[in-house]
């Protein structure tokens, strides 16, 4: 019996929105459109499995998940030959749980691939071509990101990838027009996540805020979100300077069609 030809390597991954640095330690970097966080490698598959994989389960929530890249790191750690940005997820659905969900689903569909042995490690490969690891590690970064799409990718070789299926996510924030100041629509599933996502939004405008992230604060009201954000602004101002004067007491929470909260945050600059 003839064995059906297998595709190039497939995988499910997350594309991200971030404030990419103006320059990287090397010029040989992966093109922006191809950068992603891999969630689950699926190996090469035949056409039937490939088509089945296009129906992979959506994440539990359509709201994007967010975090920050904390440093450049050479991988694999023992004998590195590529550079990745190490990610830390702080809000939104847990990507490790989602990976487990995808694993179970693909098993139930009879899709054959090598199962991951290690725990989920969120990272984004940025350079594959002869990286001077020490140079990258000496020029560290810390930048926020959020996931805007979950994709089924097919590797095309040479760090080029084709998206075979895309689930678009609703961003945790969007900058909106405000005549005098800076304004954002912030989205979240709870007061707590609104508070964290607001901090992520601020750090997209002023990167220093990522060093002052507060993720464990108990939040019990909308007013408290504003007061706590203003405390963070004050601390940033004292330590490194803040372009923001304060978050104003303005706007109220509304519930979106998708069931999460939305808040119009106006920031005096």
């Amino acid at each position, binding site marked *: 019996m003839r064995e059906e030809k297998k595709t190039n390597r497939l995988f499910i991954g997350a594309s991200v929105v971030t404030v990419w640095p103006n320059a990287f330690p090397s010029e040989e970097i992966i093109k922006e459109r191809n950068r992603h966080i891999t969630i689950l490698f699926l190996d090469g598959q035949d056409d039937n499995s490939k088509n089945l994989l296009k129906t992979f389960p959506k994440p539990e929530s359509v709201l994007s998940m967010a975090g920050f890249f904390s440093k450049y790191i050479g991988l694999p750690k023992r004998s590195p030959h590529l550079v990745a940005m190490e990610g830390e997820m702080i809000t939104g659905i847990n990507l490790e749980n989602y990976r487990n969900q995808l694993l179970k689903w693909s098993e139930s569909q009879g899709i054959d691939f090598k199962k991951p042995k290690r725990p989920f490690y969120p990272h984004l490969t940025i350079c594959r071509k002869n990286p001077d690891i020490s140079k990258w590690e000496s020029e560290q970064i810390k930048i926020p990101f959020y996931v805007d799409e979950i994709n089924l990718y097919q590797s095309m070789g040479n760090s080029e990838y084709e998206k075979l299926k895309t689930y678009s996510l609703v961003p945790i924030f969007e*900058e*909106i*027009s*405000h*005549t*005098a*100041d*800076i*304004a954002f629509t912030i989205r979240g599933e709870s007061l707590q996540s609104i508070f964290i996502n607001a901090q992520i939004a601020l750090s997209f405008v*002023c990167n*220093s805020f990522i060093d002052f992230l507060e993720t464990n604060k108990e939040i019990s009201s909308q*007013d408290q979100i504003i*007061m706590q954000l*203003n405390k963070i602004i*004050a601390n940033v*101002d*004292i330590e*490194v*300077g*803040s*372009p923001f*004067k*304060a978050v*104003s*007491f*303005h706007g109220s929470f509304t519930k979106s069609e998708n069931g999460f909260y939305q808040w119009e945050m*106006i920031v*005096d*600059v």
Partner: protein
Amino acid sequence: MYDLKEIGPALFELPKTGNMKVPGLIVATEKLINNVDFAKPLEQVRNVAHLPGIVNYSIAMPDIHWGYGFPIGGVAAMDLENGVISPGGVGYDINCGVRLAIAPITLKELDERTQGQLIYKIFDLVPSGVGRGQKNSHSLKESDYEKIAQMGVKWAVEKGYGFQEDIEHIESNGFINGADMSFISELAKKRGEKQLGSIGSGNHFLEIGEVEEVFDFETASKWNIEKNQLYLFIHTGSRGFGHQVCGDYLDQYIDKGFAEGLPDKQLVSAPIQSKDGKAYFSAMAGAANFAFNNRQMVLHAVRRAFKEVCNIDPDSIKLVYDVCHNIAKIEEHQINDSLKKLCVHRKGATRAFGPKSAELAKDFQTTGQPVLVPGDMLRASYILAGLGNPVTFGSCCHGAGRAKSRHQSTNAWKGTNVVEHMQKKGVRVLASSKRTITEEMYDAYKDVSDVVEAVEKASLARKVARLRPHLVVKG
């Protein structure tokens, strides 16, 4: 349009509706009303009219634009006995303001190279942009803060940052009475301790240019202003110190439930005569005095730059005037044939007292006070003379007013080398952040000439001179 009723030249009434305690009064020409989106700012004018003790009108200047709580370009006078004081009606940047000085040369006397050296020297001496405070200065101590509160701008002058004659050329002689540092948090003091003498970010700037046209020669001559002369504008406020004062009192007032029943929480306020109201006023006055000292120290550094680069003596660079445009002040105004004490909130609005006002120094007794109206970094700015119009409690516009959001402006200029673009137009711009320049490009603002036309028509102030920028440091 917008349900406005014309009641005089460039004056429109916004009728009282719902729980508004007074009607709104909009200073604008039909051209401005038709060309700019007034819907959101007018909603804020209506909201302000809900505040207890508001007298006559909730007022909007022609540079009005959408803020939060109060509109930017809003004026509200509250009865001192039964009215309220609103931290949001002053804004986060307490005593944000503008000062104008004139140098004894024309811009053309400085060749291109010297102009470049001058602007870089200023950029070096005057910290601007995010996080740029005075690196080498000592932190302000508690005793410094106490003196700033008690002395106002005299504190900086006595320390050698300027001259005695500067003081009379500052609104309220650079001192708001009633300041008390015990009503200001340690966090605010921490934020401000290295920020005196710095511009900050956002729309703050330092600008050098030439007097392009003189309209009122008699007044201009009394203020030592001549055509082609070199001017410098400084726009900054109380920095993080003032922002924290405002934030602290907003938090306290909201925690105490003072925002209940108001259409916008940012309008939260306390009776002026209450313990809470008085505490805010004392803290605000402290931040206002900090801001006067801030602008004084910036001017001092600029004078130093002129000395080092152009060998121009510091005392020959004359301060024309310094105005506040985010403040609440206790003033006396004629209300129904009697003098009444009011707490006048000006948020993005400038005092424009006329001739013979007891508040003004002798140099301005015959002319009225200088009203400084910076436009944008390309087209023009204006020097006006106040007419003390009682309809607006002697208030006028504070600038051109934004027409586009920062977001829209950034998107509109995406991909353009804005520094090169401005250079081609004859304006050299320096900034710590490119984003600030794109957010602040000239077309993000209304044409200031249209705004000035409205305040002239409404008899709030008259034109003295028009200025044209050439060298700009943005925050």
